[in-house]
């Protein structure tokens, strides 16, 4: 196969993958960073990195897990950066984290309902809930994506679901 055909074929695969998984990846990013714009940017970046692997001929047995893994790592970096943003300085400058959260939520009015409930869970519980019950992933896959043991993930799923049910029925 010549390079043009190969390129065309890969582009097709690339776009098909994007169509299939972009919303799920976006939701995952959203649950990770609670910010729509950022989640959109992250989604784009996840697929940019996916393309790098695709054109490098990387073997991917499970594209979906692969995409989630990229997203998860990007979110980790984001947290680190956010942390590095020196919370102390911002607090000194009269910044109140709760204000920011409120603004964020106002910005996310369209997702307010879903994010509002899930934001009450621990960050680590949010992601398992979404991956397990919204996206329907197996605990084993979730464990691989989040780089944890399947056992730990199962425990978290149960705990998170209980909490969520309590919140939803208050």
């Amino acid at each position, binding site marked *: 196969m010549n*390079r043009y055909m190969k390129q065309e074929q890969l582009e097709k695969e690339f776009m098909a993958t994007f169509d299939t998984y972009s919303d799920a990846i976006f*939701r995952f990013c959203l649950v990770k960073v609670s910010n729509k714009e950022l989640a959109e940017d992250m989604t784009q970046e996840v697929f940019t990195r*996916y393309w*790098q692997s695709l054109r490098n001929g990387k073997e991917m047995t499970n594209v979906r897990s692969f995409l989630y893994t990229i997203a998860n790592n990007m979110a980790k970096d984001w947290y680190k950066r956010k942390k590095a943003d020196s919370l102390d300085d911002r607090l000194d400058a009269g910044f109140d984290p709760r204000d920011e959260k409120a603004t964020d939520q106002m910005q996310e009015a369209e997702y307010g309902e879903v994010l509002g409930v899930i934001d009450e869970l621990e960050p680590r519980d949010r992601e398992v809930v979404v991956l397990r019950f919204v996206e329907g992933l197996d605990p084993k896959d979730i464990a691989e994506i989040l780089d944890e043991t399947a056992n730990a993930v199962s425990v978290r799923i149960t705990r998170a679901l209980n909490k969520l049910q309590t919140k939803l029925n208050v």
Partner: protein
Amino acid sequence: MTDKKHTDEYFNTWREVKLSETRREDIKTALLEHARFHGVQEAAQSTSAVSWFVGYRRTFASAFAVLLLMVTTGTSYAARGALPGDTLYPVKTGFNERVQAAFAVNANAKVAFQSELAEKRAVEAKALKARGTLTQEQAARLKAEIKQHQMLAANIVTTHDIEVTSDVKERFTLAINEFNTAVEGDVSLAIATDERVANEAAPVARTATMMAADTRADASAGATTMLATAPINEEKLIADTQTRIESLYELLDTYRNEIDPVLRAKLDTKLDAATEALGQAKQRQGDQARTLALSAADDAGKVESVLSLLGSVEIDRETGAITSVDFSNPPKLDQDRDMLIESILNAKPIQPNNDTPTVEGVPPTSVDGGGSIELQADPDTNMSI
């Protein structure tokens, strides 16, 4: 209503959360552009170390320009004046000088380069002395390094059977004299004249053997802390690299309209990789921390180099961080700017050590595909992922 019904409804609402149509189209267009810009052909070039090397040879001229640029701009530039103990000193000795060494093409040039390095170490000793901060340890290390450069020079001379030029002889003599002046009064540190190489009548090979023995003796005395194991203040390196990375993130944000979005995304990715490496460096110690921190510094340096190709940059001499970029005044280049930028971003990381990088025991940073860190100098994985 049952618990289950509530939660099911809730999850259904979640599934309705999607990218907006306009945003989706925008992203798709951008991705397709990216995929075409970084097409299959480029990937094919880097599928094996051999083809990478062939490609490297082919583009030697431009690689030369890029590396020259890297050593004369950004951090590398700021590092030029660094002294032992300074944060940027490892960049100077580890990165800049190794790049320069790579371009010493023949034996004469290599010997000359060794003499230049010896001279640099002597000048550093003198500068530290003038600053009043020359410690015993630093002096011992600089001495060991000067001797190492002598030894390497002597080895090259014997291996290639070349005549030593008077320039080289003079430089070594000067280096030793300068160094001895700096450590005045400390006999144990002064380099004895009979240890001089290349400027004595004695056969070079014999001198080399002598020095090798000398160096071994020093090593046993714990004084030979060669570059590869030279103590670096990891904490400071990490802190300064962090500052550089943070200011780079800010710069990318400030100049978001001046930088092409695709390039910006790549630079962002580099910074992410640097952040990741730095985050790991913080959790480790010694060699591992240093390797990771230098890898982060390397990535940050790449971003700095790219920025300095896009405009004229102001550099904070303390930290080496770029403080501003004037995009209206980009440097004049006789080569294609985009190509240079690509080469910088894809350049093989230069290891600070002469030895194989000591990354054993550092677990992979993430599972396949998520990795945003490039530690190994593996051309296959050296794409700007």
